[in-house]
């Protein structure tokens, strides 16, 4: 089991190296989530899997490698598609779990 994990990590490191050396976009190849913030009131999120929880105080999103949690007040979703989403409202915290 330990050997498998080690192998996986090694492969991951190699993948990152290739992406870096070819100057390719990381979010595309490694599946990282892209969060673009405009002040406190707007956030654009790309490369996510789906919504886990949504209330006007908290939005929890599932990404490939982590869970992102937006906290604030009066949170709304401007649009929601497979490619990206826009969150508006007063954002106070962002947590990666």
């Amino acid at each position, binding site marked *: 089991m330990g050997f498998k994990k080690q192998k996986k990590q090694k492969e991951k490191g190699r993948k990152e190296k290739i992406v870096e050396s070819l100057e390719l976009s990381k979010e595309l190849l490694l599946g990282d989530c892209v969060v673009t913030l405009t002040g406190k009131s707007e956030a654009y999120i790309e490369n996510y*899997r*789906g*919504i*886990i*929880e*949504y*209330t*006007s105080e908290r939005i929890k999103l599932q990404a490939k490698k982590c869970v992102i949690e937006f906290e604030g007040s009066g*949170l*709304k*979703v*401007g*649009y*929601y*598609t*497979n490619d990206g989403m826009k969150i508006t409202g007063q954002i106070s915290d962002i947590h990666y779990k």
Partner: protein
Amino acid sequence: MRGYVKIKVYGYSPERFLNLCSSRQILIWDLKNTGDAYEMYMSVKGFRELQPVVRKTKTRVQIVKRRGFPFFMHKYRKRKIFFAGIFLCAVFIYVLSLFIWDIRFVGNSVRTTEVLMDFMERNELHHGMWKSDIDCDKVEAALRNEFDDIIWASVEIKGTRLIVYVQESLKVEQGGENIGEEPTDLCTEKDGTVERMITRAGTPVVSVGSPVSAGAVLVQGRMEILGDDGSVVNYQYCAADADVYLRTAYNYQEQFSMTYTDKQYEKEKEQTYYIKTFSTRWDLDFFEKERKTPHEEIVEEKQLHLWNNFYLPFYFGDVTKKYYKNVEKVYTEEEAEALAQKKLKQFCDDLQKKGVQIVENNVTIQVDEKNCTSSGTVVVIEKTGKRQPTEVLEVQQEEMDEYNGAQP
């Protein structure tokens, strides 16, 4: 245009409902949590694809609002006259779009819009003509042929507008005068004294400081060729060319009456409106009484247009009437003098615009009970030189022979 709905989703797993929507490429916007439910907008097309999602997630969907053209059509489906009106309106607008309703000129300054408009009328290009009857290339060529100073023209039909772009040539400087090859003299048109003189071709007849009278020759186009004994053996002819500046005087005489009529405007202005279409005008002044007192009218007219280039043959205008009374007034001495000075200044400015240099101003202003009279002379230095053909003189044959024999 295709319609959208606002829906309310509640039940077992609304978050899953959202994720399934996004994975099935159903666009959701303005998603809001209302406590126990979610409200969101989606297109009608998206809404039709919802059924399997709803079944899977065990949620319930309720339509809150319906917006857009399909719903509008459905709501008013029984109003036949209304739809006929819309259809007729569309046909009417389409028919109007087949004509020219606005002609505009861009880039003209010397040739005024009125002059160009007059030309267009003569060439049967006018408001209300069929767009298909216009041959832009032909109009461009006609414009260039008619006006020599228009060096470039472009005619464009945009919407219901005919836009004519023109480029006018700049005036050729005076220095570029074509003097030709014919033998000519330069003579003066006015009395005066020669102030400065530079001769480039020809024989100067006058010198700096000599008085000349109107019509006198200043530079001759005939040059004498003298023999050894000082007698004229031949003449050579050329077009005289010189810059001759003459000191000359302009008489200034101006008189105006000390009494004048002044307009005393009433405080209140009267504003009325009108609508014009084709050549019919409807005044919207039902409650205004026609007054016979003299008045000035200021008219502002606007043409109705949809978007920038879709002009229609409908005009709205407002007319402001300013009523006044004619009051007889008398100038005070100061006012009369100021007015006389103003007129004199205008006269001098006009002279200076012609390129004349003013050196002396001997105008006196006299004010009496009835009139204000300004009289005197304005001394100026101005360029002169009018061309006239040189008189060709016969040379005696003997002298000619002698001259030719003397040549090696």
